[in-house]
């Protein structure tokens, strides 16, 4: 018990310690930093895999530390946290490789990698948080550790974006904190693994519970980029590509959505939330976000911003799945947590590749780029098609379960949303793919060095791996090791409880 709790601490430390050491390293010690980065990433991944094995075998991991009587910091590992933690760890490993390649010559690398590691530690902390307070703590820390990454370039533009970012996220954090405090005051400490927490007060505090729900969802909704709280995300695109990749695929937005899942499922419970009539408005809001994000993405010429709006739209799928109050839809949502992460990170990796290798930032500059960088664009296309939801890519699987759940929950209108969103997705992704592959080149590009790959291998490899993952987790969605299976496990466990 105690020992297994320590495993969780080690998981956190495996990136925290390298991060702290990296801070103190001088700028030049490239090699040590690389070793630390990769070593930390690999260690974390293997520890998490160890943990998953344990969960499979029925171990229960918990780390509890009493802050104050009645107020504990709790880390524990349930399948849901394992899902998110694994996602973070895998993508962190890839992004680290990518970032090492991406930032090869740029200044402030120690700072960058330091915060980068902290950011991942915190994300995994969010995943492993066992009660709402612990979640809150890590959630706020995430803001702090990502801010320096957003403004890494230090340009006025980046600073402005950073300011907006802070405004949104800290404002959201404050609302969230108020909500959590209120709820704690009502019912005491809020563990994610105890059922029926709110049942005793439902009758007497209906209005309070509703208001708290609004506060909580508003709080995490900022990070999850729910409309109208999404404004920070496109602006945060000034960050370097690895940051956009990790931030937008995993860390920040997912933390928000993960929070929504935790709140709806583990704090309020589906039954209670629907009894209070909270889920339908939430599903409306997420649907609106899905459509709005896609619509705005259509109008962007800047590749990364288009991807950002796409993220806004796609991330809401997850929340939509949760809010439909049906296990199938929830499964779709959960699995989209992973799928969207991998797909979007692929896209960002590729966008970064283009920017770094050819200096391409705009979609209008991408004509014929696939001839110059076929592998990158192949990865990009797979990611994009996955986003649209073509079978057998990952995106389809999540969409499928979402749709099934929506129908099973008698909410056919969601299908219309899904369809519209798919069409919009196609509208903003397919032209990119088309132009990249079929149009002819308009601008001269730096010539390729003979005998070399189309881009630095550290930039190329992660995007290829993630693209491959997009394909494979879709293709093998029904196998036992797929995220889908894991999501099913989570939902089964939940429905058993």
């Amino acid at each position, binding site marked *: 018990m105690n020992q297994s709790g320590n495993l969780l601490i080690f998981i956190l430390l495996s990136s925290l310690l390298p991060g702290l050491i990296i801070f103190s390293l001088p700028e030049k010690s490239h090699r040590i930093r690389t070793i630390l980065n990769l070593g930390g990433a690999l260690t974390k991944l293997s520890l998490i895999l160890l943990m998953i094995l344990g969960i499979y075998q029925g171990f229960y991991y918990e780390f509890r530390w*009493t802050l*104050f009587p009645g*107020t504990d910091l709790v880390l524990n590992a349930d399948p849901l946290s394992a899902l998110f933690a694994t996602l973070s760890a895998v993508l962190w490993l890839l992004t680290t490789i990518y970032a090492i390649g991406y930032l090869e010559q740029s200044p402030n690398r120690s700072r960058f990698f330091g915060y980068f590691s902290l950011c991942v530690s915190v994300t995994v902390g969010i995943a492993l948080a066992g009660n709402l307070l612990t979640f809150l703590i890590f959630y706020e*820390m995430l803001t702090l550790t990502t801010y320096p990454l957003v403004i890494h370039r230090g340009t006025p533009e980046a600073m402005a974006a950073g300011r907006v970012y802070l405004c949104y996220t800290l404002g959201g954090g404050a609302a969230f904190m*108020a909500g959590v405090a209120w709820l*704690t005051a009502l019912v005491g400490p809020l563990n994610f693994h105890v059922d029926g927490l709110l049942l005793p007060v439902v009758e007497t505090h209906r209005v309070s519970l509703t208001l708290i729900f609004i506060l909580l969802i508003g709080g995490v909704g900022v990070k999850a980029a729910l409309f109208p709280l999404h404004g920070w995300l496109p602006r945060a695109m000034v960050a370097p590509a690895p940051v956009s990749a990790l931030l937008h695929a995993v860390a920040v937005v997912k933390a928000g959505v993960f929070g929504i899942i935790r709140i709806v499922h583990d704090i309020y419970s589906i039954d209670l939330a629907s009894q209070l009539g909270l889920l339908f408005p939430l599903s409306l809001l997420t649907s609106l976000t899905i459509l709005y994000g896609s619509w705005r993405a259509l109008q962007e010429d800047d590749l990364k911003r288009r991807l950002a709006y796409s993220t806004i739209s796609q991330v809401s799928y997850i929340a939509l799945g949760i809010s439909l109050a049906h296990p199938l839809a929830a499964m779709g949502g959960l699995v989209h947590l992973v799928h969207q992460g991998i797909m979007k990170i692929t896209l960002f990796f590729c966008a970064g590749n283009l920017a770094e290798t050819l200096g391409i930032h705009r979609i209008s500059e991408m004509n014929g780029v696939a001839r110059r960088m076929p592998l990158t664009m192949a990865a990009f296309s797979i990611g994009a098609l996955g986003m649209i939801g073509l079978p057998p890519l990952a995106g389809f699987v999540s969409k499928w379960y979402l749709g099934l759940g929506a129908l099973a929950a008698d909410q056919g209108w969601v299908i219309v949303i899904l369809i519209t969103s798919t069409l919009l997705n196609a509208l903003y992704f397919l032209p990119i793919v088309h132009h990249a592959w079929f149009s002819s080149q308009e601008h001269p590009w730096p010539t390729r060095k003979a005998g070399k790959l189309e881009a630095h291998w550290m930039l190329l490899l992660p995007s290829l791996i993630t693209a491959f993952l997009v394909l494979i987790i879709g293709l093998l969605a029904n196998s036992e090791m797929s995220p889908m299976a894991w999501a099913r496990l989570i939902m089964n466990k939940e429905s058993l409880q």
Partner: protein
Amino acid sequence: MIEPASLAPWLIIIPLAGGLLAFLLPSRSVLIGLSATVANGLLALAITFYSINTIPLEYALGGWPPPAGILLRIDGLTLVMLTMTAITGLAISIYAQGYFPARIGSGNGVSRHGPQQDFFWPLWLMLLAGLNGLFLAGDLFNLYVTLEVTALAAVALTALSGKHTSEVAALRYLLVSLLGSLSYLFGTVLLYRACHVLHLATLGALIVSSPVVWSGLALITVGLLLKTALFPMHFWLPPAHVNALTPVSAILSALVIKASFYLIFRFWGDVFMRILPLGGYSLLGGLGAAAVLWGGIQALRQKRLKMLIAYSTVAQLGYLFIALPIIRHDAGPSSRFALVYLIISHAGAKAAMFLAAGNVFLHFGHDRINELAGVKDALPMTSFALAVAGVSLMGLPPSGGFIGKWLLLTASFASGQWWWGIILIAGSLLAVAYIYRVVRHLFTKAPGPSSGKRQVARTMEASSLFLAVLSLVMGIFAPLVSKLIASDAVSLASLLAGVVP
């Protein structure tokens, strides 16, 4: 085995002796000062360590029991305050050890800075003695004396920089202090007239509400409010804190202010809680709320870093007052714990901020917020300290400030006083805004070549970073502190029940 209570007088003896010695031997003042603060630190830790299971303790000075003699009283709150003072003080001392030589070496000549160093140490040690005495005192009049020691030393320290502005500020501070002290003294007299007891615990048990007691408590409270610089009587604080020498600013903001607040907390949250009117709590809370907002807004419009930090103190003091009504209505110990946590984390963070600001000033020769770009390259540790301390002031996790705010927030909701919670959150957001004004420059490069003049000693940077990190990871000590405060709550409950402890 050492009797933990018998260590208590040494907390006064050591700084006093150190102060006298440092005055007597100016050339050795640094050494004496440092060793005294180190000894004080060790002692405070030792007492906390030894007495954690046996509090509350009492120590009869001169062997006389009350009502004749004076008791030193050690309970959880005392221990926390003592330890906080000792550790923060130690870090500030280490900073000062590097600070004065840096100033002396900076070319203005020995004329001003040499004597500053010579007098800083004795004054600071006397101040430390006063603070320790204040926290240990269990006697209404003795509290007055220690308050005086503290105030005089603080005023002298404020004026130490010798600049005109600081002299003006110090004079203002002196007058305020005197008014506050006198008010306190008058109140004490009135209370004594009513009860003929000076021993606090006995007084708390004996006291009955009557017009004399009302006026006594009112005078004591308002006097202390004046000294604590609660809005709208904070006017003296920013100039005094800003114009003082850096270590002094840190001492004033982190510790001295806490001394008078400690008394308010003692009286309002403990000894006289039984008879104080609910409306009074709301009044203090309301003023605290106003302080949070006003201080935050004023901090936002400052152009100088130290000024911003000073107004931040005004705002942060507001939190402490907001806690009072919550404590009054909260049954459990968590709101007391929250308040204590706010006090200590603010001490660490604010001291760290002032020290860091001092480093910046020393390096650039100014502390204009908008020209701080590039500070990160010149003073990496300092800028990190600024950021980390800022996080604690904002009350973001995992800082101690967060824990305090969180518990207070929960308690405010739990006791049905959600409006205080909203103020807390609004204050945090304001804090974010003004800290952000500083922190964002830590990530930008200087437009031109670094305009820095002087190298800042590593110890100076390290001590500010130490304090900042301490306030950030203060959660580690939470179980310890909570144990201390929880034991207080037990004795408080018996006090409220009317039983003399």
